[in-house]
């Protein structure tokens, strides 16, 4: 038994995905708090995920969903390392401002 697609076409989902990605990019470029930069990165990753899943539905193959799950795992890892860095920075009483953190040496 097969299922036809109800509701909007895939291109509508792709529009939402593009808008999400642009919103996340705006947050990464605009905000200076590293916490909100990480949150905006999550939005960008989710925009890419939505596009992957929309194309997966369009092609009728599950590979895009596999890719999306892998992206989720990578995002979780990125959050672990990013939050660890932010906590380490705050424990050393560095300014939590991505414009002022311009030295790699800890």
């Amino acid at each position, binding site marked *: 038994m097969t299922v036809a697609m109800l509701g909007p076409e895939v291109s509508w989902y792709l529009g*939402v995905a593009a808008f999400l990605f642009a919103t996340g990019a705006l947050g990464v470029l605009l905000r200076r708090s590293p*916490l909100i930069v990480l949150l905006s990165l999550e939005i960008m990753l989710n925009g890419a995920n939505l596009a992957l899943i929309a194309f997966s539905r369009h092609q009728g193959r599950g590979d895009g969903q596999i890719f999306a799950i892998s992206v989720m795992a990578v995002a979780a890892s990125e959050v672990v390392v990013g939050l*660890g860095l932010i906590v380490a920075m705050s424990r050393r009483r560095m300014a939590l401002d991505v414009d002022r953190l311009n030295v790699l040496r800890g």
Partner: protein
Amino acid sequence: MGNFLVWVVWVFAAFACLGSGIAVVSFSNPFYSALALIGNLGSLAVLYLLLAAEFVAAAQVLVYAGAVMVMFLFVIAYLGGEADAPWAGGPTWQSFAAVFAAGALLVEIIVVIGLKAGGRLSHEASIPDNFGSPAAIGTLFLTDHLLAFEVTSIVLLVAAVGGVVLGAHARRGAEWGSAAREEVP
């Protein structure tokens, strides 16, 4: 009737998704931003359900809205969430350039998708009944994409080790925190 209902759900989910995405970027308090991101992830899960990706939607709610966002909220609570308005400080040309770059990115993505795939996006393939079910995803993961599965586990292990190492360094570094403060301009 079913078609209309799906459209209504899609419109609600899509606007909730876009609105909460903008809210994440524009709230000055990181705590509110994180709460808005939870709403964003929830409405994205609804869109995934409409695209017949049931397992990914469930994983999204469990992993993202559950685990990752709780970790975010803990860290924000720990740091005391300094307010940081999106337009405060910094030269204004930087902000304008950021908005311009993001707008250019949006236009580029839409133009490229429209040029490359515009005509072929209208007719979706019909899918089997179990498309996107845990069984289908598991079969794909353990047959065609076994390497991706194993690499994912290694990535997660490396991230866990990295988190522990960073935490240990932070504890040692806290003692000479006042010395580090002078090094950062």
